[in-house]
């Protein structure tokens, strides 16, 4: 019994260590610079904003996040506005698909004043990613840059 327990412990540690190694791997591809990564994200953001006529705010300063071996930048743009949520969601989907992203939409009925919340995430290997959450009173878009060289510590966390 004791031998079996020890064996299983070794398996567990082995599995967890292997996972840790795997999680740190993947830095072999050449990464864009932070400037290039931000530019890719802003380009997708501006195309997204141009596709839907709502009072978009100024492009915000991005947040910096850790990604495997580097740092990526997130642009979160919320707009409070009355809108046809379903139509807006479909427009975003069409645009992002045309940009080569794989779009995964969903929707949830919150009831009450919240109504139906339309959501989606969109990705493509090595490109900027995107997500939206839209209901009858608000539009939220989040564009995330590709993973860039550097460290999140360089951005004053």
């Amino acid at each position: 019994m004791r031998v079996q327990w020890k064996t299983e412990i070794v398996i567990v540690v082995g599995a967890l260590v292997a996972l840790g190694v795997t999680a740190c791997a993947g830095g072999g591809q050449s990464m864009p610079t932070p400037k290039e990564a931000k530019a890719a994200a802003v380009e997708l953001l501006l195309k997204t904003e141009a596709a839907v006529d709502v009072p978009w705010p100024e492009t915000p300063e991005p947040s910096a996040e850790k990604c495997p071996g580097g740092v990526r930048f997130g642009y979160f743009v919320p707009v409070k506005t009355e809108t046809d949520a379903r139509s807006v969601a479909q427009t975003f989907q069409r645009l992002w698909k045309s940009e080569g992203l794989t779009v995964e939409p969903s929707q949830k009925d919150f009831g009450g004043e919240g109504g139906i919340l339309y959501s989606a995430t969109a990705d493509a290997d090595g490109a900027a990613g995107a997500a939206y959450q839209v209901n009858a009173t608000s539009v939220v878009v989040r564009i995330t840059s590709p993973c860039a060289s550097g460290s999140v510590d360089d951005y004053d966390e």
Partner: protein
Amino acid sequence: MTADPLAGDPAAVTKLSRALADRQDDLRTGATTVARAADDAADWEGASKDRFSATVGTIAPAAQRIIGRLDAAIDVLGTYADEVRQIQDEAERIRASQLTTAMDSALTALSLSTAKLAAAAKDATDADARQARRLQSDADDLAATASRLDAEWDALVRRRATAERAASAGLSDTEVLGVAPSYSGTLGRMSDADFLAAVAAMPPEVLAAQDPSVADRLAGMPAETVQAWWDGLGGRGTAGEHSAAQDALITALPAVIGNLNGVPYWARDQANRLSAQRAYAQASGALRDAQDKYGKAVGRAAQAAAQRELISAQERYDQLKNFSAGARTQLDLVDQVPRQMITFHDGAPPLGAFSVGDLDTADGVSFLVPGMGSSLADTTQYMRAGANVLATQQQVGADTAIVSWIGYEAPPNAASTGNLGVLGETYADRGASKLASDLVAFRAVRPDAQLNVIAHSYGSTTTALTLARNPDLGVHSFVTLGSAGIPSSVPDAAATHADHMYAAQAAEKGDIAYIGRKYSFPHRLDPADGFDGVTRIDTTGTHRVNIHGLTAGQGSGDRGYLDIGTPTLSDVAEVTQP
């Protein structure tokens, strides 16, 4: 005790007195600068201005009180230095006279002895007899002088003792200390009500100088008692508007007020920010010292010891740095809301909790309980994940707050440390009492609010024990994400006493949660698989969650449990909104 009239250095006492006078000047300058800053902010308006004005308003009176006490101390020290100087001068005169008298007495005694022999000889004359009588008279006079000088010395000893007692009493006086030395003892004998009234009446600098037993007694008060006491000091208050007494307590006892159950969260926030700021400054200094020590270490053993110290200092620095960053880190919110540092314990490891949203007013509050490997170094990461829930609830019009509760020592990351504590229940058991304390405290001040717990990984193990042991918390929804397993002592959802229990379990890369449950000892249950009473949150389909973490970010190709745009996030937001 005998006081030596010649002892001491009055010049040093005078120097100390001058140093105190310099401190007075610094205080006056500081108070003037603060007053000028208040004038400069004349155009500033709003709640923050009110809060600023309330704080500034307490500084000048506090500075004046300290200046007054320094005045009293300077007077006492000045009088003492003058007195010691006079006593020493007198003592030197007496000592010189005693020396002269002693030498004269010795010479006179010798002459007298010779004169007496001459006067007693057969051929003695009348002159010999007169000489002997004169010398005897001189000897008697010198003996009288010596006796008088001895008496003067004794008087001087008494005078010096009196001067020292006067200085000691003067420096211990309430005019200098602002409080009687026996005050802490007096507080200890008071009833709770009198004790609380006395504490509230103390100026901050006096309160801060009290014995630790005062802080301990405050910390041990029931939340209901504290709440009534606090409200009696000028109402519940807000960050912008509150009484000077409340402000004094925050300033004087931040470590106590910051974690004192029954105190409103805005006040705890202000107190904890003070404590965390000091702890971070201390950790920064300790890291510099450790780096310096490591650089200077000679020899293998010394280097190894210095390296361990450096690693420990770096870890603590990282934790406190990230916790402090929670106040300013960028969060993805539809509406910006207050952030509150609702607990902070400067221990090893440091622990704390940061709210996004106002815990004093939000209709619904969710505590996000993290799992394996979490520490204050991850504060902003959990705040960002929590903010995704909050932003979604903001979109549908809910007034909510979410607390990143890093209030327990989580088991270390098994992958990076080899520590298998995550498989046992020890960490959860210890953490459960801490989580219970904070949830009970919340319920005491917010009986009307909806309370939810969102628990990730091993956090669900800790939370399950907490909720099972505290049936009166009134938890609305208990949500588990990638659970490391529910202890078998909590066999079903009903045992958690939550109104609703939900579980999300993805097919995670590396099967982290699965491994945590499979090899747990004692064995733990999967809340997402056959756990009676649980509603499962779907993580499958085209937009499946595929990692153990809460967020992966778009562009990574991966999905965490709380990534924006995912149905899992929508589900969690829905079941935790009022």
